[in-house]
């Protein structure tokens, strides 16, 4: 009898066993990897779907606001801020209640405590020059030479409609040039605005603004309009105090009035009449156009374990004859991570 007739030797058997084990392990690994990849794809799709659901639900609350002329911390929409729903955390920010690094006049920085927001050695004139050289500012990296990241994140946002009565004249030139695609249109608009300023004239209504713009109106509106720019109910207290204290607006008892507004906004939703009553000003005072009760740009951040989305929405200002029409919101940006 030869050896092969005796069956496999131990070594041959072991080699075969090792070979089969390697094959089985490879097959198992492949199946597991494919399964994990498919699972990750499904989980990511589910995570995004959950976020979309939360965004839709929050948007429904915004649209169903029974007091559309006032956005405050008492609205159902604001209750989404800090909420966790279906594993998604939600964060809201009233963007247009922040200072706009493009539109704010240099004088407002220079004559108020807002000058302290600049990094040491930087000032509003340098910011203006930078904007003139590089165009309107859009991200923090545009502003990093002027403000710290923390200051920028707390006090500034480039999102907001500009009010014709308070916007910086150089910013308006650049904005109109961008909107119309014509530098000369920008310069012409600035010259018209200088005339308004020289005559101490204030455009109080959308119809007056329409007449002022002439044929350019359709391109310029709603980016520039006559609505108060910031929502007093979300504006940072230091910003409110600083702007109300600006000597140019001759507001007596500014510090006291700031405290009054801050206390009122903690107790209930404010109306435009509340602002008028507390400040004792009306549409004939430029200060009126800084603070209103509507947020024009909102940022909604929704995040879960697998995905995150930042959506920026804007509200169209009421236009002329349609001032009583229901509010309309539009998505301006949607960024997924």
């Amino acid at each position, binding site marked *: 009898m030869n050896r092969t007739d005796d069956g496999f030797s131990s070594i041959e058997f072991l080699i075969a066993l090792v070979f089969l084990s390697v094959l089985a392990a490879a097959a198992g690994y492949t199946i597991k990897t494919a399964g994990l990849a498919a699972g990750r794809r499904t989980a990511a799709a589910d995570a995004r779907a959950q976020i979309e659901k939360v965004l839709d639900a929050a948007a429904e609350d915004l649209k169903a606001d029974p007091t559309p002329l006032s956005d405050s911390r008492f609205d159902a929409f604001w209750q989404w801020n800090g909420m966790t729903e279906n594993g998604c955390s939600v964060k809201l920010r009233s963007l247009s209640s922040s200072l706009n690094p493009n539109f704010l006049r240099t004088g407002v920085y220079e004559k108020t405590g807002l000058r302290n927001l600049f990094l040491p050695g930087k000032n509003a004139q340098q910011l203006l020059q930078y904007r003139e050289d590089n165009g309107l500012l859009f991200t923090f990296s545009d502003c990093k030479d002027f403000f710290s990241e923390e200051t920028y994140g707390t006090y500034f946002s480039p999102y907001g409609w500009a009010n014709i009565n308070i916007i910086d004249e150089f910013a308006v030139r650049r904005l109109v040039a961008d909107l119309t695609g014509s530098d000369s249109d920008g310069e012409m608009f600035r010259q018209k605005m200088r005339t308004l300023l020289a005559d101490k004239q204030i455009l109080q209504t959308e119809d007056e603004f329409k007449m002022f713009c002439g044929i350019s109106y359709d391109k310029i509106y709603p980016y520039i309009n006559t609505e108060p720019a910031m929502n007093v109910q979300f504006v940072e207290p230091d910003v409110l105090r600083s702007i109300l204290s600006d000597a140019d607006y001759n507001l007596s008892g500014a510090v006291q009035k700031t405290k009054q507004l801050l206390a009122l906004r903690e107790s209930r939703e404010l109306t435009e009449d509340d602002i008028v009553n507390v400040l004792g000003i009306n549409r004939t005072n430029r200060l009126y156009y800084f603070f209103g009760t509507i947020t024009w740009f909102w940022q909604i951040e929704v995040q879960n374990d697998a995905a995150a989305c930042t959506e920026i929405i804007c509200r169209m200002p009421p236009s002329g004859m349609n001032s009583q029409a229901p509010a309309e919101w539009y998505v301006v940006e949607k960024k*997924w991570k």
Partner: protein
Amino acid sequence: MRSDSENGFTFIEVLVSLLIISLVGMVLYASFSAGFRGIEKSKAEMRTAVRRLQTDSIIRSAAGSVRIPYWITEYEITAAGETLEFPWYDGEKEIKTVRLPSGVVIDKSELVRKDGEAPFGIRITYKIGKREYTTSAAFGSFPAGKVKL
């Protein structure tokens, strides 16, 4: 007595056998040859499909990262060879160059917009080999007043 078979094959039998073996060989060769050609073709198709998927994904991802400020109405992208150049990538003014996989040649690029308003996406036509493909992708930003909430 010895049987015929024990006497060996006749000449005719050998010839017929050779013929049959040749025919079978030819059929086998043709089959293998066709099989290998098919495999090569499938591999080429697969490579094209992968390149197409990569290209589509790169274009969509790049377009989704474009955040044009809401006040900007004029926008231009540059497309040449295998590269696309996007201004306002992630909101930054600086132009971002995006390279497509090798072997992909951009044929045409156009902005997607309505009624002469600010663009909200791009449409890129490109060739992989002789085939032409098109990918349309939306930007991460939309002109104000276009996409209703």
